[in-house]
């Protein structure tokens, strides 16, 4: 009964979305206020119906209702409750439902917070949102209904892929989807603006917080995903340039560009057409991510089940959404009025450079990800593009980006004095060169790129602090005055500094773990000791332990340094009988500066085990840095300008020239 209720509310949500996608749009075209007013209650109703549908599916999982096919395929009665709940979105159908749930929640949020949006803009934004939702509702109802029944009901389910039975599943996909779907708002605003034929700073003021929120979620989602891969896959790596990782990374790169170009629209009323294009492309890449993961187009370790019918349907959706909006762009964008002018060397110029580099980087990743597909179409041969390509193409674009990142925020709007700015950064430059030289010295030669990149990370970190220091006139005025200035700084300024410094920290982590990682693989018998990086690991034999739905071989490793016992690591190898799968549970011990990482592999004859040990320098910094970046996004979101209700004041302020920060 409850699954049917879920199915019914899903159909209801589709019908409401059809109304929301048509009547308000027509109303906006004809100036009928009553038609436009339909959008708001429709958005609420659509959201409520989707929440009910999601709740119904969650219920089916919680009570292990094995008459529902989706539950049978992805759950098991012995699975811990946490994974029963998170298992709802650990599969194709359920994750689509989560996707569309977030979409409707965002739609309702625009309807709720957007009281002071111009009525026609609001009607169109909600109309476009509804069309995106229609695409996904029909996709679910026609090809991937999560509520499909099965009879006779099997006695138990097939269990969830053991790799997904991890707390990471609780946060990673929802955060990722909040990011992907968040960009749909920017997309809807872009389409609405093209339909309206008008882009003004008030529009950017609306687009920016949504983009910022989506970016923050996506940053968190990607970072969490990479951390999850780091501790769960047991390879000691945190990024594999896998197609599925790449398709989440591309919207992030382009979304970062959008975030920055929207600043220019808001402050200087320039770059409008470009910003619209970025908004369309960013969301199109989010859709592409959804497409690739579910279509079997590219092979990946973490794709969903392959089904060409579904792939075709999503391709159709993608063609309508991206192709349609790009066609609209080609038709309407040339008539948008260009805004403020600026010299090449200026804050705007810096942000344009940022955008060009980020867009090029996105194109590089896109090309590398889909190159195998192009080659196959032409020659029929299969090949895969791996880290060497990305290291050779992506890094040379990102390093200059980091170099200009420290300079950009110190440049003035309209026209800046580059020599002056660089002069102000001379101590930072000196520190960066020293850091690069020190790195070179410590690693005794070693990779040149590591020394160069470390210098740039220091350059960015100190440059960001220096800019903040100049703003509060640190050491030039009494400390109390600096403190007052610091408190008076806009939250957006703090957010930027946090995010930029966070990137520098994450970068140091990436360099450290790629360039100076130490590794030891050995076959060990009970009593054996393995030395790595000044530590010694003593293997005391493996024990068989029974988990709720798995068997575990746990190998306690005693960690020693100079003969002193520091503690015990417990790497595990789990066997999930229902899915016939082994997983590794790495044991990680961190001191904030480096990680000791231990994995046990296959048992060998005679009570011996393969043991893999890694020493990963600076690796925790990747996630500290990412956390700082996401925190920067949140702090910036809390800026007074962007707070709920602020647009009322903002709308008035928009008429006056916006003060430069």
């Amino acid at each position, binding site marked *: 009964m409850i699954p049917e209720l879920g199915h019914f509310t899903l159909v209801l949500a589709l019908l409401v979305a059809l109304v929301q996608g048509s009547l308000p749009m027509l109303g906006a075209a004809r100036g009928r206020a009553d038609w436009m007013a339909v959008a708001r209650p429709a958005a609420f109703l659509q959201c409520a119906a989707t929440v009910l549908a999601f709740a119904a599916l969650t219920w089916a999982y919680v009570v292990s209702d094995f008459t529902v096919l989706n539950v049978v395929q992805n759950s098991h009665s012995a699975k811990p409750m946490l994974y029963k709940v998170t298992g709802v979105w650990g599969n194709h159908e359920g994750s689509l439902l989560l996707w569309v749930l977030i979409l409707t929640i965002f739609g309702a949020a625009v309807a709720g917070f957007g009281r002071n949006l111009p009525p026609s803009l609001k009607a169109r934004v909600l109309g476009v949102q509804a069309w995106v939702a229609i695409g996904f509702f029909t996709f679910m109802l026609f090809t991937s209904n999560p509520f499909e029944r099965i009879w006779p009901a099997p006695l138990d389910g097939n269990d969830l892929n053991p790799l997904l039975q991890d707390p990471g599943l609780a946060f990673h996909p929802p955060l990722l989807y909040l990011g992907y779907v968040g960009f749909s708002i920017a997309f809807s605003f872009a389409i609405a603006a093209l339909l309206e034929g008008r882009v003004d700073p008030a529009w950017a003021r609306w687009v920016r917080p949504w983009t910022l929120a989506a970016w923050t979620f996506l940053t968190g989602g990607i970072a969490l995903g990479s951390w999850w891969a780091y501790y769960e896959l047991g390879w000691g790596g945190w990024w594999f340039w896998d197609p599925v990782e790449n398709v989440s990374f591309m919207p992030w790169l382009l979304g970062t560009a959008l975030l920055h170009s929207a600043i220019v629209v808001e402050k200087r009323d320039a770059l409008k057409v470009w910003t619209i294009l970025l908004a369309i492309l960013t969301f199109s890449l989010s859709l592409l991510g959804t497409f690739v993961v579910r279509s079997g187009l590219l092979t990946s370790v973490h794709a969903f089940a*392959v089904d060409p019918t579904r792939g075709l349907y999503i391709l159709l959706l993608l063609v309508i959404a991206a192709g349609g909006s790009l066609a609209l762009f080609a038709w309407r964008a040339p008539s948008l009025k260009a805004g403020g002018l600026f010299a090449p060397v200026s804050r705007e110029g810096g942000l344009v450079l940022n955008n060009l580099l980020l867009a090029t980087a996105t194109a590089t990743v896109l090309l590398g990800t889909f190159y195998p597909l192009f080659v196959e179409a032409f020659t029929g041969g299969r090949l895969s593009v791996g880290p060497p390509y990305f290291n050779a193409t992506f890094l040379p674009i990102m390093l200059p980006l980091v170099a200009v990142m420290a300079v950009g925020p110190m440049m003035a709007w309209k026209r800046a004095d580059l020599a002056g700015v660089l002069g102000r950064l001379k101590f930072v430059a000196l520190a960066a060169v020293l850091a690069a030289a020190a790195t070179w010295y410590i690693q005794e030669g070693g990779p040149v790129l590591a020394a160069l990149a470390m210098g740039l990370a220091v350059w960015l970190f100190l440059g960001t602090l220096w800019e903040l220091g100049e703003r509060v006139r640190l050491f030039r005025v009494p400390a109390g005055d600096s403190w007052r200035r610091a408190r008076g700084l806009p939250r957006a300024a703090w957010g930027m500094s946090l995010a930029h410094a966070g990137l520098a920290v994450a970068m140091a982590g990436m360099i450290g773990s790629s360039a100076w990682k130490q590794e030891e693989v050995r076959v060990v018998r009970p009593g054996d000791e393995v030395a790595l990086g000044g530590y010694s690991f003593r293997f005391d034999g493996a024990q068989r332990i*029974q988990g709720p739905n798995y068997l575990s071989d746990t190998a306690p490793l005693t960690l020693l340094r100079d003969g002193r016992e520091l503690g015990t690591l417990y790497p595990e190898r789990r066997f999930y*009988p229902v899915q016939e799968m082994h997983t590794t549970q790495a044991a990680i011990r961190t001191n904030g500066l480096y990680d000791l990482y231990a994995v046990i592999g296959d048992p060998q004859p005679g009570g011996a085990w393969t043991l893999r040990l890694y020493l990963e320098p600076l690796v925790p910094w990747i996630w500290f840095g990412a956390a700082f970046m996401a925190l920067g996004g949140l702090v910036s979101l809390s800026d007074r300008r962007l707070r709920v209700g602020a647009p009322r004041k903002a709308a008035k302020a928009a008429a006056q020239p916006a003060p430069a920060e």
Partner: protein
Amino acid sequence: MLLRLLFLFPLLIFAVGAYFFYLGLDPARDPSTIPSVLIDQPAPAFELPAITGGDQPGFSTGDLGNGEVTLVNVFASWCLPCRAEHPLFMDLAAEERVRILGINYKDEPEEALAWLEELGNPYERIGADEEGRVGIEWGISGVPETFVVDREGTIRYRHVGPIHPVELEELILPILERLQ
């Protein structure tokens, strides 16, 4: 006019990309659906010892075929669904409708014997596959799994997961009757 063309550029690139995606969706392209390769193939060659401490003989390829239709059931004491389907095998064995052989998969001998003691033993022979190697030979994807092997030793049917009474009546018994 030239400017207008510039605005068409993103659309054109997208169209080219979409065309390649379309090519990539060719259903014949990715043979990702692997049907059970063992159907209508002779049973794999293997030899399994008896459960240590048990009084039943082990089980090898030579025990299959020989003019008798056989059910091969893969089970383990740690597997809950096995417990659920077990009474069906007890009934089948009591009625002497078909010969049932068992593969005890990745199990501890004592636990397996205790399990059979508790629930009854419908198996004529049981091979102990402690390492799970033979399970790989048979291509099982989980436990329980049940195979129907015909008089000539050819695998005719594979059942993944526990057998439901309805499935036994409507699916497996008809196959057995046909083969016998």
